[in-house]
């Protein structure tokens, strides 16, 4: 058999890479190896619709089985790659099998970060990264009365929002940061979102370090904070971020930083190996060329398209504006661009009406835009960032200006032949 494309990781990045390779005319065999036994599924709904009971696992399929069959993409699910040998172009699986490759793609994503405190192995302590985590959590939630979520990032807050909507439980979110969403949102947005969570009945305990989780008879009973106070809990969910899965690459000797180091086309330090999605890190023009590792669906998908283009000799294209979304408490939160290095922010629209956006500038340049319940404005912002439009803070804040008409359609008119 010809040594074709071997993809490690059967999720957003790996599956779109396989599909796009076929669309681009790749004729060699394609195999995807995935550690999770479930057929490839969408991850974002795990902390949203699935917890709320609005969607079921079968609604989450990324592609149908018929698709994989017709596209001749073979799926090896429920087995993990345990070693990569770049010299021999061979991957060893957990069941001892060895697969040869012509090209290898690392799309191994990230895994829930282990807790840096004692007690995380008690019964009643859960994480939320995979479908099986989410299904187990859903069962636990049904029987829980006192839920403590550790970590006020997007996933922890989406979960607490879902629990607040279900009602009937005490929900506490604990975070060591002085505010929620410390890593992924501006302070202004965080303040607005925190207010909504409190209003929904969720208790937020901020600036608090966890000392340990206590239990009795093997079951968790409470969360103990560094100041000695205790919060009763019959369910504790750890939402404290992820650890990138770049271990295989490191052992194989590929260049790594905060993840597997790649160029725009996903190429690693080995010309036969690409990496993409949550496990990869690269220089971004949206961060003045600094190294960034993003954890969002858009990045996984862009990485897949860029790698597929590079592997099939098609133009890879400029890096598109990074973006992600989150849904919680009826708020559609979207961020376009990267918020590092921001020194000035203006608001557009009204916070009272729950529909506004925050325009972040670094010096004179627009750097990132956060929108709340304004998806069309988010799309405009993405295009403005993409084109490096010279919009000023005053113009961004002025709701009398139709930004799309003023900046985008005019540019299009100018660039038309």
């Amino acid at each position, binding site marked *: 058999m010809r040594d074709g494309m071997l993809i490690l990781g059967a999720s957003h990045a790996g599956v779109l890479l396989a599909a796009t390779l076929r669309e681009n005319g790749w004729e060699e065999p394609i195999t995807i190896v995935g550690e999770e036994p479930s057929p490839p599924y969408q991850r974002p709904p795990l902390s949203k619709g699935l917890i709320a009971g609005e969607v079921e696992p079968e609604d989450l399929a990324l*592609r149908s089985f*018929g*698709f994989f069959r017709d596209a001749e993409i073979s799926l090896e699910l429920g087995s993990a790659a345990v070693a990569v040998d770049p010299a021999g172009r061979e991957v060893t699986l957990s069941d001892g099998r060895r697969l040869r490759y012509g090209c290898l793609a690392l799309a191994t994503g990230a895994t829930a970060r282990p807790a840096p405190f004692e007690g995380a192995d008690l019964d009643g302590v859960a994480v939320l990264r995979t479908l099986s985590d989410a299904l187990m959590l859903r069962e636990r939630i049904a029987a829980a009365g006192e839920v403590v979520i550790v970590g006020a990032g997007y996933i922890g807050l989406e979960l607490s929002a879902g629990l607040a909507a279900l009602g009937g439980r005490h929900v506490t979110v604990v975070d060591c940061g002085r505010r929620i969403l410390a890593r992924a949102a501006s302070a202004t947005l965080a303040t607005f979102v925190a207010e909504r969570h409190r209003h929904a009945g969720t208790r937020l305990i901020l600036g608090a370090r966890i000392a340990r989780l206590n239990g009795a008879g093997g079951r968790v009973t409470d969360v103990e904070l560094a100041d000695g106070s205790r919060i009763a809990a019959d369910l504790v969910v750890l939402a404290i971020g992820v650890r990138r899965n770049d271990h295989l690459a490191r052992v194989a000797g590929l260049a790594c930083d905060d993840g597997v180091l790649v160029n725009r086309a996903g190429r690693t330090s080995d010309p036969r190996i690409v990496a993409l999605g949550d496990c990869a890190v690269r220089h971004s023009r949206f961060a003045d060329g600094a190294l960034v590792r993003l954890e969002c*669906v858009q990045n996984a998908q862009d990485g897949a398209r860029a790698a597929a283009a590079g592997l099939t000799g098609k133009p890879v294209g400029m890096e598109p504006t990074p973006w992600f979304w989150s*849904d919680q408490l009826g708020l559609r939160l979207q961020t376009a661009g990267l918020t590092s290095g921001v020194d000035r922010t203006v608001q557009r629209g009204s916070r009272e009406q729950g529909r506004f956006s925050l325009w972040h500038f670094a010096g004179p340049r627009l750097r990132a835009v956060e929108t709340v319940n304004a998806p069309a404005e988010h799309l405009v912002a993405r295009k403005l960032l993409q084109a490096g439009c010279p919009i000023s803070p005053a113009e961004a804040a002025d709701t009398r200006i139709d930004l799309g008409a003023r900046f985008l359609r005019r540019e299009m008119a100018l660039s038309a032949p």
Partner: protein
Amino acid sequence: MPTIIYEQPDGIRRRVDAPEGIDLMLAAKRNGVRGIEADCGGACACATCHVYVGDGFPLPEPEPEEQAMLAEVAAERLPQSRLACQITITSALDGLVLRIPARQF
């Protein structure tokens, strides 16, 4: 199951038997219909599931949010433009033809 017909810009058609209750984007995605990118998976957050809908079917009017997003789609916006993720499949849509635009970005 209602049949939905997806037509590529070059005129090539693909018939998909789609269960009622799911949306037009999901039916395309699951079956690997190309050209409907759907980066947000149907959260009405990306506008990369743009399609041109055929005449003569009882489609619900777009909500204001979808309406506003249609102004920002990558390909030309036409009166038939819709976001495929915002339309739920019913038996009344049997035989509907969706034309896929040349670009979604």
